[in-house]
Structures are given as structure tokens and as C-alpha cells.
């Protein structure tokens, strides 16, 4: 089967375009509207963070961008194609996804996990696959000695790194992260954030992430989109978002926890 390359939009042009999105969950007696006429555009080269209270459908939105779930209504275009088109063979070369708990295949070693998408192409010789996976594994800060360890023997931070290497093995231009630093201790989480920042710069990635961690949010994001009232109430650079008047934003950023993280905002004036 011919794998058609996806045309990348130029730097700064929309890479993900969500228009008039409705998501409705039906249970036996009730109907929950999660998203109502939600619009969101992600431009190439951005690091967009999606924040919102629990139950506002952040992870659902990520899953819809990936094509794992179908919205009730509305359209999602990724790199100018509808999401259904993207799920074909070789999807790993278009979008990389880092799941919250890594989702490493527990029956494979770290290296085999990273090599999996390449091996499944069935055309690359095993030595090349091994070398390419090894390069990615070290790029995310794992050592060659860790390559043959099983996921059960890796620490939480190493699992995330291995999962990131797997997401990036085919050099996709778009990377999705679900709670990248959840479950990591502060030191590991700081290391992971700086790794993400350097990868974003080196590989010219576009990153969409969902996070609750304010440190991560302020250190990485070039833009923040706030989900509340079933839609994106505001999106823009962190400073503009904080200035926006809304009860959720007030509680989320300007509470005690927020004040501490805001210190960082002064230290890192939006690197990237």
C-alpha cells in the first residue's frame, strides 16, 4: 500500500481545526452535553495547553483529535484531512500520543515498545529498526542499558520517557500529551518538562496537551485554551488568559496553588 505523505501546513498555519463540535453522552435516563459549539484552532509550532475543571471533556477532546472517539456533531480536521482519514496505516508518522499512564505494551521491552511502529511497517530490516529505536530512546534521556528492561521494571518517569520515545519514533509533526507530568515527583516532572521543551525546539513539533499541573502549564505553554461552560471560553498567551474574568479561571490560577506557580511565570517569560 502506498503511504501518501501528509502535506504539512507552513509554520504558524492551522494544523488542527475544530469547528462547531458537539459531544453528547447519553445514559439511560440522562443526556450530558459535554461540548457545545466548541471551536478551537491549533497553529503549527505552538504548544497549546487545554485546561478545565474535571468533567469538561479535555481528554475526550484529545481522543476525538486522535480519532479514537467520534464527535456527535461538528468537524475536526488535522493537517487538512478529516480525522477518519488519519487513522490509516502509518498513522504513527502523523500524530504521536503520550497516554497518561504511558500505555507501554507490558509484554515488550522498552526498546521493542519504541521499535513497534517501525517494525509494523514490515519493510525495514531489523538492524535498522533497532538502531532507529535506540536513537529515539536515548533522545528522551534513557540509557542503552535500559533498552532491554520490561515496562514493569521501569520507574514512572522512565515509563513516560519510553512512551514519549515510542510516540516520536516516526517523527510525527504533531504530539498530543495527556497529563504528561501526572504521577511524577517534582524533580522527574521538571526533567520531563525541559525534555519536552527541547524536543519541541529540535523537532519543530506542534504540541497539544491536557494538564492540571500549573508548573508544567506555565513553563511550556505558548497558548492556553480554557474549557468551561461546554466550550473554549478563552484562548491566548498565559498572561491574557489569567486576566480574563471568569470564576473558573479565578479559582484555577489565582488560588493559593496558582499564586505559587505564578512565581514561575516571572522566572520563565515564555521560553520557546
Amino acid at each position, binding site marked *: *500500500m*502506498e*503511504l*501518501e*505523505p501528509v502535506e504539512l501546513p507552513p509554520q504558524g498555519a492551522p494544523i488542527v481545526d475544530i469547528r462547531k463540535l458537539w459531544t453528547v453522552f447519553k445514559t439511560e435516563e440522562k443526556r450530558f452535553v459535554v461540548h457545545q459549539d466548541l471551536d478551537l484552532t491549533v497553529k503549527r509550532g505552538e504548544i497549546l495547553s487545554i485546561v478545565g475543571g474535571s468533567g469538561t471533556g479535555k481528554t475526550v477532546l484529545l481522543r476525538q483529535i486522535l480519532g479514537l472517539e467520534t464527535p456527535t456533531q461538528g468537524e475536526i480536521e488535522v493537517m487538512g484531512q478529516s480525522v477518519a482519514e488519519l487513522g490509516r*496505516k*502509518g498513522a504513527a*508518522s502523523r500524530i504521536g500520543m503520550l497516554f497518561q499512564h504511558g500505555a507501554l*505494551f*507490558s*509484554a515488550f521491552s522498552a526498546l521493542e515498545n519504541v521499535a513497534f*511502529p*517501525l517494525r509494523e*511497517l514490515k*519493510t*525495514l*530490516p531489523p*538492524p*535498522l529498526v*533497532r*538502531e*532507529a529505536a*535506540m*536513537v*529515539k530512546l*536515548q*533522545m528522551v534521556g534513557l540509557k*542503552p542499558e535500559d533498552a532491554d528492561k*520490561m*515496562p*514493569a521494571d521501569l520507574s514512572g518517569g522512565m515509563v513516560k520517557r519510553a512512551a514519549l520515545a515510542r510516540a516520536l*519514533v*516516526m*517523527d510525527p509533526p504533531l504530539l498530543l500529551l495527556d497529563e504528561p507530568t501526572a504521577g511524577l515527583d517534582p524533580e522527574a516532572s521538571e526533567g520531563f518538562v525541559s525534555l519536552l521543551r527541547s524536543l519541541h525546539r*529540535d523537532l*519543530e513539533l506542534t504540541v497539544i496537551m491536557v494538564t492540571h499541573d500549573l508548573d508544567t502549564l506555565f513553563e511550556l505553554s505558548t497558548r492556553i485554551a480554557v474549557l468551561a461552560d461546554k466550550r473554549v471560553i478563552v484562548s491566548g498567551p498565559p498572561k491574557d488568559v489569567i486576566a480574563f474574568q471568569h470564576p473558573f479561571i479565578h479559582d484555577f490560577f489565582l488560588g493559593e496553588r496558582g499564586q505559587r506557580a505564578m512565581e514561575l511565570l516571572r522566572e520563565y517569560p515564555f521560553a520557546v
Partner: protein
Amino acid sequence: MQESVPRLEQQPAAEGAQLRVLGRWTAAQFGTPRLLRKVSAELASADVQQGWDLTHAEQIDHVGAQLLWDRWGGQWPQHVDLLPAQRAVLDRVARYTVAPPRPKRTSWLRSYLALGEAILRAGGHIRSFVLLTGQLALNLVRLGKAPHEGPWRDFSGHLYRIGATALPITALVGFLIGVVLAYLTARQLRQFGADAYIVNILGVALIRELGPMLAAILIAGRSGSSITAQIGVMRVTDELDAMSVMGISHSFRLVMPRAMALAVAMPLISIWTTCCSLAGGMIAADISLGITPRFFMHALPEAVQVDTLVLASSKSVVFGLLIALVGCHFGLRVKPNTQSLGEGTTASVVTSITVVILVDALFAVLFKDVGI
């Protein structure tokens, strides 16, 4: 699409005798069948020492860069024209490429050590199985002292799931085996005119051997595997550890109710299976030999002593206990990954069926004088 196909192009000497790298050198492109073989052939015939020009390539990702780097023999060629982004990719590949590990050689020593390991592993299995059995005995004593503390809800749940829900399938299998056995023996018996003895043959064979065995093998496949999978998943999701932290013993809370439920359910299912197979045999005997059910029912108590029934039922209790213990044993040994869960479940079913047949043979030898 022609432009994006990865390829090499030799530039004429007038333009500096360079080798031009063209197209998209990406993993997705190399996913096209047979393309890589062509590119590899082009690469192999290329002269590394002449200049390389990568600046006209549409895209080079890490896999493409790896391919070039490997051709260059792991070092930069003398002349190479690169864009800054391409240099960054190649730099990373250069920095992180490690020599492949030497394949492990199989030697006598290694296979000798592997043998020792296998023996130790088998010893470990036996040791932890004995431990599990001993713990079950201790827990039964504890339960006897304080019956109100027992996990009775669990017990009744397992009794239903292992026993009641297995009734249809065991009935069907038992009935069919009874029919088959009756037809086969009827042909032989008719040659000798010993038609009436079909009752004896069916009675002894089904009640003493086939009924309990069939039931045990079906339950081993059905419930032994589910016990292993249940406990194994609890290991994978840390539930077992959570239980230990609360100070609740796995043996008391997980193993004992299952073992008790199987010990109670197994003889009952065995009797049920036997009854169904006798019914099958009776019908087949009526059709093929003209032996009426009335005669069959009348002759059966004379052909089969009560001792046989007692032996069959007590055998079933042992089978039930063994199936539960083997299931729990493999479940508790599952390591937290999917591979181990699958292996554990398979091993559990195979072992429990083997153990049931072995123990049945043991019973046959030990009690060869009872009830016949």
C-alpha cells in the same frame, strides 16, 4: 508522487561530481513495499568518498538519516552539504547510534545452567503449592474456630458461578458421552448375546470413572482458568498488594472460599454429569438393544454398589480442591504484565487437567478392590 520517492542522483562531474539525496527519506515512505530494497541497492553502489548533497532532499527524518549514517560507516564523509536542520538530525543519530549487541552464543555451560534453572523453578512451584495447601488447612482450622468470620458471601457467589452456571454444559457433554459409549458397547455385546451386561458396563464406567472425570476436566477448563485470570488481574492492578496492606490474608479471603466452593460443587456436578450420561446411555440402549429403561433402572443397583458411588463422590471432592489450588497457585504467581497473565492461565488449565488425570489413576490403583 514521483518527486517524494526517496532516491539518489549522480551529478555530472561538471557540477562537482556530487551525489544528490532527493525525495522524502522518512519512515512512512520506506513503509512502501520494495522501496527500501531499491534505495539500499542505490546506496550500496554509491561511492562514499565523493561529495554528498542533502540540501535538495524534501525531508529527512531520523530513520532516513540512520540509513545514510549506516552507509557512511558511522562517520561523516569528507564532503557533505547539509541544511542546519538536517545537520541537527544527523548529529543526533551520530551521537546516539550504539553498536548492536553481540548475539548470545549457546554453549554447553549455558544449557547446563538453563537446566538447573528449570529444576529450581519446578522446585519453587512445588514448594509454593505445598505452602498454599498448608495455609488452606490452617485457615480451615481458623474458620472452624470462628465460623462467623468466614467469607461466606464469597463462598456462595463462587458456588453459584462455578456450580450452577456449569450445569447446562456438563449435562450436554455427559449425555452425549453416554449415548456414544452405549452404542459402541452395544455392537460388541450383541456378538456374544450378552446384551443385559450393558447395564453393568455403563454403570461402572460412567459412575466410577467417566462421570467424575468429565465433570472435573470441564470444570478445570472453565473455572480453573477463570480463577487464575481473576487473581492474576488482581496482581496486575495491585489489588493483591492493597489487600495485604489492609492485613487481609490472600489465602483466607481468596483461596479458601474458592477451594471450599469447588470442594462442595465438584461432587454435585459430578453426580449431575453421571446422571445425564446414564440417561443418554439408557436411551441409546433402548434404541439399539431394546433394553427398556424399566429393566435398566432395575438392574443398575445390582450392578453398581454403593461403595462405588461413595468413592466417585469423594474423588470429586479431591478433584475440586486440586483445581482450586492449582488455579490460585498460578494466579498468585502471575507477574504484572499481560504476557505472564496469558502464560499463567494456560499453565493453570494444562496443569489442573493433568493433575486430575494423574490423581484419578492413583485412585484407580489404590481402591481397585473397593466396590467391584
